[in-house]
């Protein structure tokens, strides 16, 4: 008679948990990603040493991404530009703190997140201190490109329509996952949250956003009846 080896329940649980954890780990970086990471690390070390051209290259590489992330923290593209500028000011100072073992993209995301949150807090304080809502000057940015202006107005309208009532965290997670295409594990890695919390926030955000979409659709109410 063959005797089955005894596996303690706790050991079994641990091995299962390890399998689940491994499944939720981010995918291994590709060769192109590793190359990009090496270039980033080199540029960052040169920029930290005071090389202005390396810093300019870094800004050129990351400005669109930083601006895109800032859009989700801001209420309009002009505010996003301010946040992006602030991010690069901070990066210029703290680039020496960047450790090349991590992704520079994730580092820039963390800087953007912190800068946006601080600017939001400052703006709130300023709004509270202002005598009246009219005391705040209206944002008027001169844009020579009419098409660009239309795009920016459209983006502002969309942000207000979709995300105005959403808490900042849900807004951020919905954008990263549903609009930018990141996985919950990647988002968890970037934001420092647990994947389960990311999924819970995503669930709430989707429900809130889609409920607003669906409420405007005539077929939806009929189907609900």
């Amino acid at each position: 008679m063959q005797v089955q080896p005894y596996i303690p329940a706790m050991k079994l649980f641990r091995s299962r948990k390890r399998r689940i954890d491994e499944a939720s780990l981010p995918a291994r970086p590709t060769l192109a990603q590793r190359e990009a990471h090496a270039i980033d690390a080199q540029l960052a070390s040169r920029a930290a040493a005071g090389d202005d051209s390396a810093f300019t290259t870094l800004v050129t590489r990351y400005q669109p991404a930083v601006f895109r992330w800032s859009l989700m923290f801001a209420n309009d593209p002009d505010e996003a530009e301010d946040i992006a500028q602030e991010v690069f000011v901070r990066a210029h100072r703290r680039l020496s703190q960047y450790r090349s073992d991590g992704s520079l993209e994730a580092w820039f995301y963390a800087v953007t997140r912190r800068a946006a949150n601080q600017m939001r807090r400052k703006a709130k304080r300023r709004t509270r201190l202002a005598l009246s809502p009219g005391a705040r000057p209206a944002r008027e940015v001169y844009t020579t490109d009419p098409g660009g202006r239309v795009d920016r107005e459209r983006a502002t309208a969309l942000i207000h329509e979709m995300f105005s009532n959403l808490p900042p965290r849900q807004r951020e997670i919905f954008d990263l996952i549903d609009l930018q295409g990141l996985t919950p594990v990647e988002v968890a890695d970037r934001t420092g949250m647990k994947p389960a919390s990311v999924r819970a926030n995503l669930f709430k955000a989707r429900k809130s956003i889609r409920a607003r979409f669906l409420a405007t659709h005539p077929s939806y109410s009929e189907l609900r009846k």
Partner: protein
Amino acid sequence: MTCEECLSALETESLREMTADSAVIQHCATCPDCARVTTMVRDKEYETATVLNSLPPMSDPLTVAETAGVTDQRRRVGGVVVTLSAIAGAIVIWIVSATMVVPGLYRAGVIGNGPRPTGLRTETMQLSCLSPQQAADIINPYVQGQGSTYFILRSGIPAITVRGTPGELAKSRDLLAKFERDPNAACRVAETRLRTTMKAVDRAFEDANRDRDAAPSPGPQNLKGPGLLGSGGASLLNADKATTPTKKK
């Protein structure tokens, strides 16, 4: 899948993960109403993603990099200036406190063993009933202010000296006066007894006098003997009559 289930799934599920063989898409292939709603949601999210992802930053990267460098430099200098200002401010505060504030507080008696604060008065209160120690026990809780105190005279004089604010002095005075006036105070017991005894004696004398006055006095008709008006007394009355002038007819 029913329309209800399809709409519930549509509220929370990822549209990107919905493949052609998913239940929602298969239901939408047969239900035109659900298909319309699903398409609307998908289009809205796609449009939003397209608009936001394709919006380029307006600023030139060169300008951004240059501005970042200049702003960072300015902030560094600003940080140094702020730090130096803070140190200078701390030094100024230290000097001012060492030369003006601390001596002032010392003079006012708030800190150290300097002179007592002004506004305190000293008063000696005479005691007729209470002992100085009793008086001290009574006023002690009320004389607790900064610099306030009391002194018990060692020479045995029945008095207590109180030092305190006018309010504390008034309170002590009132309290002592109240206890001094109390007729049940220990020092007044003998006096009270004496007074009671004297009152009782007075009352007894009064009662005796009243009884004597109320008893019937012996009149001239009742007197058996000559009495005070019998012999000598009558002659005295007669003498009065003799001297009375007679009426002329």
